[in-house]
């Protein structure tokens, strides 16, 4: 992995979409709260907003973006280094670089079963409401975009493509609900859960996921608000159950 990254030119950082900016928005009252800064940056990395090998902006610029002092930022970067999410190189081509989590199952171990259940409850509340409101409020153009996004999900072949397409899908549903807050919340929740959903799916699970998303778009298109809510909630419930099953297995092999 390390040798691969050394061959790659430092890429410009991509912390630019609204989702990224939400995560990296200047923190209110962030003075000295390096842990908060580290968590935000860690979320952006886990959401895949910053790719493996990508170089972060220099310290002064990143500190300014985040609205914290360079001292706080340095402390936060040290925490991320400890978690193995960034590495720092010296020299002309140097800087702080993003490192994707090495073990795909490792992120799951950060959550207890109880926390996974709670995360599922929160996601169901947000996704369910977003789906219901989208069915009530979406115009044909927005439904069309959802269809396209479901198509993109269908065409996804790798775990990261699938994760990205499905993240985009949930954010677009919240946008079709006409709610910036729900869209922001979906982005945040996906940041927390993103690398978990990137875990390899078992045979047939991808097709099932695509079919569920198609059904949800159909419900939104035909303005069946309650059905849309139920479908979105059930989708989260199935995903949560899958994650809990894997977490239980990890206890077994510990």
């Amino acid at each position: 992995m390390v040798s691969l990254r050394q061959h790659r030119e430092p890429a410009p950082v991509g912390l630019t979409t609204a989702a990224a900016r939400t995560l990296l928005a200047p923190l209110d009252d962030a003075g000295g709260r390096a842990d908060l800064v580290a968590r935000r940056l860690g979320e952006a990395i886990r959401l895949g907003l910053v790719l493996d090998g990508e170089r972060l902006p220099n310290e002064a610029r990143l500190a300014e973006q985040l609205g914290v002092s360079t001292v706080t930022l340095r402390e936060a970067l040290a925490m991320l280094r400890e978690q193995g999410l960034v590495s720092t190189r010296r020299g002309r081509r140097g800087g702080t670089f993003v490192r994707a989590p090495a073990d795909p199952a490792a992120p799951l171990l950060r959550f207890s079963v109880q926390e996974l259940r709670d995360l599922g409850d929160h996601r169901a509340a947000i996704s369910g409401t977003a789906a219901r409101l989208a069915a009530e409020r979406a115009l044909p153009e927005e439904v069309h975009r959802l269809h396209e996004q479901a198509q993109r999900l269908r065409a996804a072949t790798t775990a990261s493509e699938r994760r990205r397409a499905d993240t985009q899908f949930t954010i677009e549903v919240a946008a079709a609900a006409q709610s910036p807050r729900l869209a922001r919340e979906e982005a945040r929740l996906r940041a927390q859960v993103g690398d978990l959903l990137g875990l390899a799916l078992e045979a047939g699970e991808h097709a099932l996921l695509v079919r569920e998303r198609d059904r949800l778009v159909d419900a939104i298109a035909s303005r069946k608000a309650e059905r849309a809510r139920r479908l979105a909630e059930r989708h989260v419930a199935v995903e949560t159950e899958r994650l809990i099953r894997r977490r239980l297995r990890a206890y077994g092999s510990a």
Partner: protein
Amino acid sequence: MTRQRVQPADDVLGDVMGELEQVFAALAALGARFADLVEQTGQPSREHVASLRPAIFDLLAAHRELVTGAGIVTAPGLLADAPRWLEWWWTTTRGAPEALRVNLDPGAPDFYDYTTTDWYATPERTRLARMAGPFVDFACTNEYAITLSSPVHAGGEMLGVAAADVLVSSVEGRVLPTLVALDRAVALTNADGRVITSNTPAVVTGQRVDAGAQGASSWLLVETS
């Protein structure tokens, strides 16, 4: 559903509708300067487009109560040194306009493909100015906004758009003092029947009011009770 009385928004909201017209006029002028620039340079660079910044800042200053962001967005392949480009500035709480940074690399996870947006694709197709939204601008500003865009063409070739963002909250601040003074429940909707704001809690922003909004070309006032 009860029959809904509908009238053009201009009838009651002449002041704000007039200012939106002025914004469109300013965008057309900005777009014309951009077209001149393309003609003079043959193939312009980002630096050439940057020479339009004073005009963009003037537009932001002249309409600061309504407009939060404005700029030129170039057609893919037009510029010599960038396949896609937004010369886009928004006003911040800090005062001075700030450049909007989006990822224009098609391979990036957060690639911003503006060519598929309503405010770019629709004027490209129709060659007419477009008032897109209200929509959740999750890709850029994460605001609930309306985008006014004016296409720029040279002969048959699309060069890009000159566009401006207006927040729904800003429109609300301008129109609700007038609407709440009316003795009837009304909603201000866009041409597609999407509610921008209303003077009654029974009808909220973002909602669809289908009746009466068919085939409209501008914003409407729809009586809702």
